[in-house]
């Protein structure tokens, strides 16, 4: 009977010893281990370009060789908040002879990086032999200018609209983009030149016009327009206002040695 009691107490002691030792091992392990969690996010670079809200926007006429240009004065720009759309405003008219002689209308937009942007943009000069695409200039308004006065060819019973209907034709222009300037001040430019088809349209326009005085009396008058190279608005003729919308497309098909990174200086 006594022997049986001793055996039971021995077993109980062994179990207690095992539990205490297991607890010690667990506590020791917990004391000598730690975990550090690292969270990372890996993305590709963001390519986001925008037109500068305040900058020197330029509109000019560039001769076919690209050596000389005629700057148009009084150019203003309205940019959207995100810089993804810009409207250029200028009051000077362009004599058609410039277009006939192959001058390109150059629209230059100063560029900057968008928010969180990492820009790699290829810098290259315009290649007129390799057009990027074509754009259509839609007729918005036709006027007649005679001795400084401007008469609108609106449907007001004057009949001017019918007389000037030959000018109500859209023009197609070839587009050549370019990106120039220093990395801190990049310029995106669009060069627009008349296509052969549109040159044919211009060639077919009448050089003389005969109209009645009554038509002029009935026509509403517009504000004077000064053309490039004119000191005063004196050349008689037809003024046609065209609406033009062109995307300035930038892509990453750059050549490694021509990369210009905005704000980082010249890249290798």
């Amino acid at each position, binding site marked *: 009977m006594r022997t049986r009691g001793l055996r039971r107490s021995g077993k109980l002691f062994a179990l207690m010893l095992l539990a205490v030792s297991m607890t010690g091992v667990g506590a020791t392990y917990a004391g000598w281990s730690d975990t550090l969690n690292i969270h990372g996010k890996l993305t*590709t670079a963001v*390519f986001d*370009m*925008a*037109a500068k809200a305040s900058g020197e926007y330029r*509109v000019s006429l560039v001769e076919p060789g690209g050596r000389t240009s005629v700057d148009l004065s009084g150019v203003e720009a309205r940019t959207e908040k995100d810089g*993804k*759309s*810009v*409207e*250029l*405003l200028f009051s*000077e*008219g*362009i*004599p*058609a*002879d410039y*277009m006939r002689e192959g001058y390109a*209308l150059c*629209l230059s*937009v100063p*560029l900057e990086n968008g928010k969180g942007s990492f820009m790699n943009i290829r810098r290259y000069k315009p290649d007129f032999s390799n057009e990027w695409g074509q754009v259509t*200039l839609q007729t*918005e308004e036709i006027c*007649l*200018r*005679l*001795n*400084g*006065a401007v008469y609108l060819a609106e449907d007001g019973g004057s009949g001017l609209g019918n007389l000037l209907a030959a000018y109500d034709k859209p023009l197609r222009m070839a587009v050549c983009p370019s990106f120039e300037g220093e990395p801190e001040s990049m310029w*995106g430019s*669009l060069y627009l030149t008349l296509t052969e088809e549109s040159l044919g349209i211009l060639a077919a326009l009448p050089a*003389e*016009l*005969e*109209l*009645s*005085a*009554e038509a*002029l*009396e009935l026509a509403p008058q517009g504000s004077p*327009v000064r053309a490039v190279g004119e000191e005063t608005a*004196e*050349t*008689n*003729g*037809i*003024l046609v*206002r*065209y*609406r*033009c*919308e*062109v*995307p*300035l*497309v*930038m892509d*990453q098909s750059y050549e490694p040695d021509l990369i210009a990174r905005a704000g980082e200086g010249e890249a290798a």
Partner: protein
Amino acid sequence: MKQALHAALLAGATVLGCTVIAWGYWIDSIQVKTDVTVLYPVKITVTQPEKPPIPEEILQEKAPLEDAPSDGADPNAPSQGGEVSDTDEVTDPADAQAPSQEKSGDEAAEKPAPGASAEPVNSADPGSQPDSPAGSGGSASADSPAEPTGGAASGPASDAGAAPSGEPSPASGTDGGAHEGASD
């Protein structure tokens, strides 16, 4: 076999979709809008509507009335007197160069024969210098009887714009001397 084709098609579509997404991700564009005004130089000829000739009876009735003020002491008196009989035109050939628009004497004095210097054909030429302000010389047409448009006459738009204020003369030149300032 069918399952293999289906899998290949799915893989191709996935690759194409990924390519398009990657390409779209690496391009950017800014929309540039503008209005471009182009000036086409054109030679413009403005034709005046031809007026029917005044009946001789009316001319004869008017003649005595017009003679009275012309004999009077005040040659600048406003007139009805703008109209001068044909005899004046004959006696004073210089009047033939004067514009035929009927004007008062004061007006005529202020604008000494603007139509006389106006050359309708030249003024219609592109790039010519308009030497008459807007509203002057209602009808330079009388100065150009040899206008190729026949009875119609050509002149600057400003001339035409002044037409309502004055009475343009017929291109026949019957009123060619109707200009008091010139007759003075």
